[in-house]
């Protein structure tokens, strides 16, 4: 019986192989880090001003429900305005939908049903500006005195209304954490902010699509982007 001999045999190039493997690992890690840095996107939340509040992040319960209903109602109110004033004759006063019109149209959050009760039975009032004069001011729908716990008040402002015209780009929804507020004197932004109102900003589907796809939103590019692509093809990328 002979004693066993254990000898460790290392290949001649083992040091170089180990070194090469380590270098390759470091290089791959660096390349990956560079790729992530150049292609990765920081998850940025939309920046809000102090006088704004997020419907998605901040509002909850009854207030979030009412806001979402108002967000759709603002479009429908403009349609109803068209219906009401379609047959107006010359000099006839244009008017905005009264609360009864909104009730007849089954339009939440104004329509008084069980859902309205469940979300605090907000009391709505309409402030329609004077019928005289070229610039009539802002139409405002105020919802206040809700019964839900911690409920705030809402103000839908259809701004800068001229006789016979509408400017539906100027529709804003405001929220006030106070349960009871009086109808503001005007719908001008600065005044509302001083009275404690906050503009409500939605997290819209458009914002979410942009968050998902970044700059590569599927679909045809807009005209300026198309022109950029053609110019880049002609002249190469960069400036």
């Amino acid at each position, binding site marked *: 019986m002979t004693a066993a001999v254990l000898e460790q045999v290392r290949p001649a190039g083992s040091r170089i192989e180990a070194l090469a493997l380590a270098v390759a690992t470091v290089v791959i890690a660096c390349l990956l880090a560079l790729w992530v840095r150049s292609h990765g996107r920081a998850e940025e939340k939309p920046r809000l001003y102090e006088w704004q509040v997020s419907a*998605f992040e901040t509002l909850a319960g009854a207030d979030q429900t009412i806001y979402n*209903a108002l967000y759709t109602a603002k479009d429908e109110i403009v*349609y109803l305005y068209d219906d009401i004033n379609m047959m107006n004759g010359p000099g006839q006063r244009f008017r905005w939908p009264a609360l009864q019109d909104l009730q007849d149209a089954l339009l*939440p959050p104004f329509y008084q049903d*069980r*859902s309205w009760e469940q979300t605090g039975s907000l009391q709505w009032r309409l402030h329609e500006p004077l019928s005289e004069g070229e610039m009539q001011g802002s139409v405002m729908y105020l919802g206040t005195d809700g019964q839900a716990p911690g409920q705030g008040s809402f103000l839908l402002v259809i701004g800068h209304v001229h006789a016979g015209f509408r400017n539906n780009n100027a529709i804003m929804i405001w929220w006030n954490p106070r349960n009871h507020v009086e109808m503001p004197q005007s719908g001008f932004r600065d005044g509302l902010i001083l009275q404690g109102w906050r503009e409500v900003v939605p997290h819209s589907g458009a914002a979410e699509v942009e968050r*998902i796809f970044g700059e590569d939103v599927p679909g045809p590019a807009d005209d*300026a982007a198309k022109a950029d692509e*053609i110019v880049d093809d002609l002249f190469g990328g960069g400036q």
Partner: protein
Amino acid sequence: MISLRHAMRAVLAALVLTTASGTEAAAPARLKVGVTLHPYYSFVTNIVGDRAEVIPLIDADANPHGYTPQPADIVRMRSMDVLVVNGIGHDGWAFEILDAAGRRKDLPLIYANDGVSLIPVAGAPAGEKVVNPHTFIATTAAIQQVYTIARRLGEIDPSNAAYFRDNARRYALEIRKLRAQFDARVAGADLSKFRCATMHSGYDYLLQELGLQVTAVIEPRHGVEPTARQLAETIDRIKAAKVNVLFAEKYFASKLSDTIRQATGVRMYSISHISSGPYTPGRFVEEMNENLATLAQAITDSAKGAGPAPH
């Protein structure tokens, strides 16, 4: 070179704009509008009437949850003039088909949720706000999408814009009337005893707009079953909160819901996700009407203090 480059850019932008305007003026006689999900088939057919062809992107019996694109989908997509998508969930496969069909850059897409104010999923861990994509299982969010689709289709086919808008308004009123019928069904019912849990977060928009709170959501993520520990905690929460109603998916059977029903004694009701079956113009309204009738039944049963329902 830079000034030449800028000049070219300006000229080309003008040319592209002119071409685009020309395209709008010469919109196809009858648009071919693609849709990804069942509700969008109903929305679009009601908006366009007989003035456009509506093409579902995937077969009627396909399950959009985790769908794998098929060659026929690519063929269908190549025939479309425009595609209506949810875009924030449920139809991510449409973008794979878009790439496979080579139409990512030239097929106009209508993102139906563009104008919808989104809400977070209910029952998410504290502090976590995850966007809920189930905007098509609701009335108000559905109406907002109908208006968005009608407006965008009108931009693509201006000669029919007024027709699309009028149809959208008529259809919106039809959807609103479902809410009025729901109101009549629950008239006088005591809502104070109503406590509900849902299998997943698909019904959040619907329950929220009706002013109904969700106490617990069983699935931690849509389509993901809870672990044994999560399930045990949820059952404890359901018992502690005296939840008496559980809403489960109508078309996707789950043994999990039976387990919860047996463990807690809640009454179980089925709500449709409106994402399967034949594509028909009336499908959304029919299924939403059934959903609201089911909700009304759940409310009246809980008001009566009815015991567990056989399921």
